């Protein structure tokens, strides 16, 4: 099994964190994994992304040429990474923040209104984790329980204030997954 995924958005949406959660879950399942961020002059509001590899075998390049999957949490990321999806690959588009039509016929698109979905949940809810839930449900690359365990473990290292948001995160994750099983009409 080899899975390469790019998570992209604007600074503050949690693209990097979504990638780290994925890696932690991969470690829990005993898989090999790498995570590498775009780094440097990134800031809140600026474009940010990370590349994650998950595999049963040793991972050579942490840098991804063409990804099996791209999670684009805004329109800028959608434009930037549409060409980085492998032929036959898949891209999640955040229809809440993008009106741009898909350009390619050789890949699958999943349109998810991430921000509208987040508003339906206990606040605060998290678009990155909703997208992660959708990704896991769609690809089955890791078990949902592993992702929950990963978030639970990571929460232990956080401050009391942030730790309290774990249930919200789990709710977001599950809601993302349920959207794939049964897409809701969003009003």
């Amino acid at each position: 099994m080899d899975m390469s995924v790019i998570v992209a958005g604007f600074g503050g949406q949690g693209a990097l964190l979504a990638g780290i959660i994925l890696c932690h879950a991969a470690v829990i399942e005993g898989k090999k994994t790498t995570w590498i961020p775009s780094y440097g002059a990134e800031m809140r509001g600026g474009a940010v992304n990370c590349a994650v590899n998950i595999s049963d075998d040793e991972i050579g390049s942490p840098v991804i040429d063409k990804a099996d999957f791209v999670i684009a949490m805004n329109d800028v990321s959608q434009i930037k990474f549409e060409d980085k999806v492998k032929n036959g690959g898949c891209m999640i588009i955040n229809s809440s923040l993008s009106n741009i039509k898909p350009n390619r016929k050789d890949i699958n698109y999943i349109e998810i209104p991430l921000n509208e979905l987040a508003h339906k949940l206990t606040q605060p809810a998290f678009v990155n984790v909703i997208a992660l839930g959708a990704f896991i449900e769609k690809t089955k690359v890791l078990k949902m329980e592993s992702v929950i365990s990963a978030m639970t473990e990571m929460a232990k290292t956080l401050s009391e204030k942030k730790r309290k948001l774990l249930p919200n995160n789990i709710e977001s994750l599950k809601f993302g997954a349920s959207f794939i099983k049964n897409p809701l009409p969003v009003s």
Partner: protein
Amino acid sequence: MAKVLVKGNEAIAQAAINAGCQCYFGYPITPQSEIGEYMGAHLPKMGRVFVTAESELASINMVIGAGTTGAKAMTSSSSCGIALMQESISAMCCAEVPGVIVSVMRGGPGLGNIAPAQADYFQALKGGGNGDYKTLVLSPSTVQEAIDLTYRAFYLALKYRNPVMLLADGILGQMMEPAEFGEYPYEDPDVSTWALDGANNREPRNIVSLHMPEGAMEERTNRLFEKYQAMQENETTYEDFMLKDAKLVITAFGTVGRVAKTAIKKAREAGMKVGLFRPITLFPFPDKALHDVAENADLILDLELNKGQMLLDVRSAVFGACPVEFYGRTAGGLLTPDSIYEKICELYKKIDNKIEAGVN
């Protein structure tokens, strides 16, 4: 001990702590600032020394001060910051002061950019400092190896009383992957015979890099080079990946080595006999081993994230045993598995054509 998910820079910092690093002196610079940040968060709590120096020049000179007392000291920086340290690295080699210098390379020359690159091979190996000297240089390609080589760097610095450089790049510094820390595996050499620990009940000592009496500096330099010879004999290491029957041998150091592996696996699946020779110690360079490999190969392809620096050491080691080609990107341009694979295909055709034509 279980594997943990850890960022390259933080892995180096934690490994330094495990290795018993007593003092860290540094000045922040991308892409290695997490090392200083991590040290700042942990060392003071452990009763060890952490100083944010006023410059890289100050950092390396603080390392010299600590090193002369036999303490395990470290600094870290990136390209243009390491450039400022060159004079002091030369002085450390001359005066035989141990210390660990972590260099996480970014794009250059000049202030360059903050993207990953390997363009400081010459800086690390051929030195910007004056005189006849050598720095031990270790080059990790994975986060696990960054931990293992950080341990080794502290050990070798004391063993040889010489600065040791851990030469990484922005990819390794910034990436996360699972790794195991284990325990510091070395028994540290005794420093009591030379360390400046207060001349109480013994003759005073000094550790200096100025040797004026007639013949003194040549004698010292000769002795230093006996030490470098011992490093060459005892410490040279490299990775052999699918070299046994390889016709096309890739040479690469650091992260380029691991990227090349993905391309090599793909080439093997397509029936091409390709392997990787990856020097882990850049000085001492594994030249004898590389020469032996070259004698059984049809072609060597050297890959680097620069304009061809290790290439000179590769050519020198190969010494005409087979042709050497170079392919590189620099200053943030990356070698990807696909681009390496294309290069392999292109060059492998040349080898096949030669064999068909009966040319050896």
